[in-house]
């Protein structure tokens, strides 16, 4: 019987990891549904970008209040994980504070520092909650933030509060033990609240909070893949695989390059038999559905934590248009999830008559973009909504000819007379003599 807690703990740990791995594997598979794109170049620049943007939080600090609060929660998360490691060791081996003997005199100051971080985290989380629910920051209350998106955001704050509460009270109860060895900076002030409890009650309470804390962490781990909060993991690969080129550089379509080269080659035989690989599926220009996008676009979508900095900087959104870069990312993620479920249920994708462009993102949103890159600049984890918008426009224009009429007229002009307006090419140099 004395080994029962150890066995229960190991079972809980193994289950938490297995269930998480399964879901994470599905997300990885969904990301893999995207088209290939080469992001293997410049590994050292990529690593630096990841260290600066994800690890160093450089772009978060563009907004100092949210940046500072987020930094507290982030540092606290990283450091308190050391404490979690001790809890896992204790849980497996049935020890109590396994690290204490090794750290000796340093143990109490270290745990005290964790407690300070825990308190700062509670404060930060409460301010976050206030900004979302009471002062109602505009960017948290856009149309795409209704329903699950809003609930999800609050759930995370509540989970964090519960975890910090359990951690501090676990230490506070222990401080009341008749044979207490440890007293820590913050929990010593919480300890008197529990001083009336019996010795048995203290021990029971300490174990209870210990279990609440660690099972809470396991639950949190498994909540992540269903939540926007998955960014705590994906921010790292996402910044590593970010676009490092100039933001103004839009990729050139290689298939089109081949076609244009053939058209401009006077020796090309227009009646030549097509190449042997005609069995290959005809490639679609641009993107109609989420799986027409690249895996980097899909990784972006799963990384998005819906903070809305992109949308709050978007000139179209600022002037009341329907376009919201955050919604572009949320739609992409929701659609690729839907495709993933479809594949899991049917073995391979069965046409469901739905698509990213049309059922999720409307033409009205698509054509409101000014391609100004404000959303890309604003994203603290290097997500690029503009790249998705441009691929959807490629499809709309080249496959469906559904660009707004005025743009079709502009393109006809470019085609006929080399300028977006109906002026004669031969009048191009008239300004010299005017």
């Amino acid at each position, binding site marked *: 019987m004395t080994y029962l807690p150890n066995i229960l703990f190991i079972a809980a740990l193994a289950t938490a990891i297995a269930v998480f791995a399964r879901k994470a594997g599905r997300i990885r598979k969904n990301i893999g549904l995207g088209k290939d794109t080469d992001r293997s170049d410049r590994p050292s620049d990529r690593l630096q970008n990841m260290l600066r943007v994800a690890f160093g939080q450089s772009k978060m600090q563009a907004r100092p209040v949210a940046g500072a609060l987020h930094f507290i929660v982030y540092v606290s998360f990283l450091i308190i994980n050391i404490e979690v490691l001790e809890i896992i060791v204790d849980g497996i081996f049935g020890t109590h504070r396994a690290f204490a003997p090794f750290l000796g005199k340093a143990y109490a100051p270290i745990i005290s520092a964790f407690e300070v971080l825990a308190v700062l985290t509670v404060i930060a989380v409460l301010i976050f909650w206030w900004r979302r629910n009471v002062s109602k920051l505009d960017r948290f209350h856009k149309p795409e933030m209704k329903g699950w998106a809003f609930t999800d955001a609050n759930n995370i704050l509540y989970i964090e509060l519960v975890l910090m509460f359990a951690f501090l009270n676990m230490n506070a109860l222990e401080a009341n033990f008749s044979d207490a060895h440890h007293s820590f900076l913050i929990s010593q002030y919480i300890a008197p609240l529990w001083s009336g409890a019996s010795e048995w009650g203290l021990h029971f309470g300490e174990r209870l909070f210990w279990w609440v804390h660690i099972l809470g962490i396991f639950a949190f781990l498994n909540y992540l893949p269903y939540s926007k909060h998955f960014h705590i993991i994906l921010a790292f690969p996402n910044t590593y695989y970010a676009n490092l080129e100039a933001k103004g550089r839009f990729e050139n379509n290689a298939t089109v390059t081949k076609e244009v080269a053939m058209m401009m080659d006077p020796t090309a035989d227009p009646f030549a038999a097509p190449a042997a690989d005609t069995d290959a599926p005809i490639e679609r220009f*641009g993107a109609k559905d989420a799986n027409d996008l690249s895996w980097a676009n899909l990784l972006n979508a799963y990384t998005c934590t819906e903070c809305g900095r992109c949308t709050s900087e978007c*000139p179209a959104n600022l002037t009341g248009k*329907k376009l919201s870069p955050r919604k572009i990312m949320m739609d992409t993620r929701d659609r690729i999830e839907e495709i993933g479920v479809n594949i899991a249920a049917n073995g391979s994708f069965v046409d469901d008559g739905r698509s990213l462009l049309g059922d999720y993102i409307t033409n009205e949103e698509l054509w409101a973009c000014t391609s100004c890159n404000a959303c890309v600049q604003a994203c603290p984890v290097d997500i690029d909504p503009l790249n998705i918008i441009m691929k959807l426009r*490629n499809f709309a224009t080249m496959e469906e000819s559904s660009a707004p009429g005025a743009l079709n007229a502009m393109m006809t002009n470019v085609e006929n007379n080399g300028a977006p307006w109906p002026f004669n090419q031969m009048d191009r140099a008239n300004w010299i003599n005017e």
Partner: protein
Amino acid sequence: MTTFQVPTLAQMTAEGKAPEVLFWVGCAGSFDDRAKKITKAMAKILHHTGISYAVLGTEEGCTGDPAKRAGNEFLFQMQAMMNIQVLNGYEVKHIVTTCPHCFNTLKNEYPELGGNYHVEHHSQFLNRLLKEGRLKIEGGSFKGKKITFHDPCYLGRANDEYEAPRALLEKLDVSLKEMRRCKQNGLCCGAGGSQMFKEAEKGTAEINHVRADEAMETGAEIVVAGCPFCNTMLTDGVKNREKEDQVQVLDLAEMIALAEDL
């Protein structure tokens, strides 16, 4: 009418000469009445510095930027290939342009298609000439004038150039008042992504009106832009408030041409 000869690359090549730099005028610079003034100001500066330059004239065609941003990759690459054939045919090495859209496309999207040139926006080019002592600016007429600078998206965020235009303005001894949203956070004028050529979607305000208001809130007498499209949008925004008598919208090139009384 320009009082001096603007050489075309065809003429120069026929004379067996190769210019140091090709001035890429762009569609707006060639056809838009307001933008043509920017083109002329730039030509005056080039002439004044005595630098050897040329334009393509009737051999220039749209870079394809508006087509690409409207989703028409095919038309974009057709334009690109035609231009690259002309540019490579003349063995062009160095290009300067007053349009950030042409600048971005030539600089970033042409190399992969076979067009490799040293491309500069006129703010970068003129700033370099200043540093090399080939252009001298006395800030007399603008001394102490309150101005603000609007960062064009395709120069700023798209290509991370924020300092060159400001360095030029500094030489003019103006009093630069930055807008709340500037540099990396600059608000778009509303013309990019082919919006210049269509009506905006339904909303609560026009982007260019909002941006012009932000520019005027600084108390600036002159709003400086570095893009013919931003110029048009902001001019329209100033007119929207009926402030065109108090607030001017000028290009960097026009500022320098005026300061030098060219």
